[in-house]
């Protein structure tokens, strides 16, 4: 046993929860062994823990008071049993949607400690949440103060993270539905859509957008728009460009139309 061990407060709480689970399981096993139809479940538990508190690396660490510790602090912890629907409700609230950018994607903008403060203290778990917070000046100031990160750095990080990026430009294979349908091109990347459809241009000419989401845009280019500089604009100052040439992959009928 290590009497000097300190533990982050959250790990202490998890360790107590684990002990409560063990107690619950042990009582259920005992009830079964005694052939009883019911067991006893721990519903509420409160403890006034005497402990020493340390604060280091943005963490609250505690150590239960040792013998003759007169100056220990007192923690009043109350645990209560929650139902499965309550667990699921909370899990949904904290889950990240597939493809959602985590706050850890901002490691070039913030140190490990800053990201931890943003996540645990400011509730900024992902970039969408950062965007929501920065849209409200009062909330933005509060998070900047709590996480001890200047507001301007938060804005710059969001601006960098929100910039559209084009990774691939690939033709959509024809589905054989008919030659009169326009050929389609898929643009893959990040932040390709914000509010409303993005503006897509090839060599300065607009291209019809069939559908768009943040990770993919499908366009229907004219035959003469099979190559050139592609630009995707999601907001007045948010634009990504890429050069592409899909002429070798296009159906012969389209190539003939482009040539005529």
């Amino acid at each position, binding site marked *: *046993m*290590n*009497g000097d*061990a300190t*533990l982050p407060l959250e*790990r*202490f709480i998890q*360790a*107590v929860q*684990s*002990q*409560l*689970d*063990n*107690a*619950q399981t*042990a*009582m*259920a096993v*005992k*009830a*079964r062994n*005694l*052939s*009883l*139809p*019911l*067991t*006893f*479940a*721990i*519903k*509420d*538990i*409160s*403890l*006034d*823990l*005497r*402990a020493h508190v340390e604060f280091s690396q943005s963490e609250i660490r505690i*150590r*239960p*008071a*040792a*013998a*003759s*510790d007169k100056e*220990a602090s007192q923690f009043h912890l109350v645990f209560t049993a929650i139902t499965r629907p309550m667990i699921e409700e909370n899990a949904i609230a904290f889950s990240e949607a597939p493809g959602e950018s985590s706050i850890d994607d901002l490691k070039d903008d913030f140190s490990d400690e800053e990201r931890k403060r943003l996540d645990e203290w400011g509730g900024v778990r992902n970039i969408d949440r950062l965007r929501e917070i920065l849209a409200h000046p009062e909330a933005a100031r509060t998070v900047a103060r709590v996480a001890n990160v200047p507001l301007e750095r938060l804005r710059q990080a969001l601006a960098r993270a929100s910039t559209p990026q084009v990774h691939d430009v690939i033709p959509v294979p024809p589905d054989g539905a008919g030659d009169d349908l326009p050929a389609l091109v898929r643009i893959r990347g990040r932040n390709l859509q914000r509010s409303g459809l993005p503006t897509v241009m090839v060599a300065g000419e607009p291209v019809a957008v069939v559908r768009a989401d943040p990770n993919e845009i499908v366009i229907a280019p004219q035959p003469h728009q099979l190559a050139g500089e592609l630009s995707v604009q999601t907001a007045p100052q948010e634009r990504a460009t890429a050069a592409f040439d899909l002429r070798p992959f296009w159906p012969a009928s389209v190539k003939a139309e482009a040539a005529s």
Partner: protein
Amino acid sequence: MTSRRAFGEMLSDVGGGVLDALASDPGIVVRDVRYTLPVEFALSRSGDDVVVLGDVPRLITRTAFDLPTTRVEFTCVAEDLA
């Protein structure tokens, strides 16, 4: 030196005492039980795992060598095993 039990082990021993009473007399109906106990807490590390040790004081008379006690209140409610 006598080792302290894990907190969960102590809770299940205390809470499970009612189960023994129920098994010995099927006529007893208990809906809930409330406990208030003095508990000595400590942490034990085993590799990366941390176990919360929590046990009732071993002696009635307190000495300077005993850990301070924490007042623990908990309620156990009857629940169908199914």
